């Protein structure tokens, strides 16, 4: 099968999504996304802004939230708790990896 060239988009902290884009890409409704914000699972770049935007990493969080809701039939409050814990694990693993990189290895 012939391979098709594709364009990639970085999901980094300097990439932002609007609330509408997150809704389109995540499978969650605007109300559900607002609920996740209220529970602290995701945080807008500027909560006081009239139009919320979110950093690239939030897309991963809300996609995970949607999968959890569908797979385990969880309510949003439970989903928010789980994704918060998963994000915390991810951050700690990343921090651990960075610290381990800075430790010298044994000289052979």
């Amino acid at each position, binding site marked *: 099968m*012939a391979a098709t060239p594709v364009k*990639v988009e970085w999901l980094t902290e*300097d990439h932002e999504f609007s609330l509408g884009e997150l809704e389109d890409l995540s499978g969650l409704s605007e109300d559900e996304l607002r609920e996740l914000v209220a529970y602290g699972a995701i945080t807008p770049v500027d909560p006081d802004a009239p139009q919320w935007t979110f950093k690239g990493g939030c897309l991963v969080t809300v996609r995970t939230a949607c999968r959890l809701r569908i797979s385990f039939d969880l309510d949003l409050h439970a989903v928010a708790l789980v994704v918060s814990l998963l994000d915390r694990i991810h951050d700690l693993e990343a921090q651990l990896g960075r610290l381990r990189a800075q430790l010298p290895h044994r000289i052979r």
Partner: protein
Amino acid sequence: MPGQDYEVTVHISLEDAFRGTEVELNLTVPEYDKEGFLRRVPRAFKVRIPRGATDGQRLRLAGRGGKGINGGRDGDMYLNIALHPHPLLRVSGHDLYLDLPLAPWEAVLGATVEVPTLGGPVHLKVPPDTRAGQQLRLAKRGLPKPHGGEGDLFAIAQIVVPTATNERERALFKQLAEGSTFNPRGHFQEEMKSGSYTS
């Protein structure tokens, strides 16, 4: 209904992350056929991963997931980048860390040493009186960042003693031992006496 999203972990080398690379993904994905039955279909993608990837980075390929149904948009593909461990360089975000073995005289007197980087070897000036564990920064010699700029490379000084010495070398070390007042354990007695750590 929108098409299914796919998620794939792509393993690349540090050199690939530095230069950018093209990878071919061969996936078997669920898709509905004309009769409406769900079948697993082989699909191939050639993906250009631009410079700027690091371990754990995520990329989105819009519209490259499963086909949408009844006019729904096509799903997306998400790539998780995983870097193969490098024999010398360790990754921390876009910064790199390298153990830099130094002979004792190089650490004390200073030296210019050759250091490997992803862009080719460079000369690093080790200052006199470099201590074990000291990090010597090579600015902009780390991984490139997605939207411009580069991380740094940190060379961590490791003072290494020779594993085998000849008679002359041992004589010189003995001379140094007899002539030096340096005591690396000078703080032991004081720290054991003080008890100040309990207050």
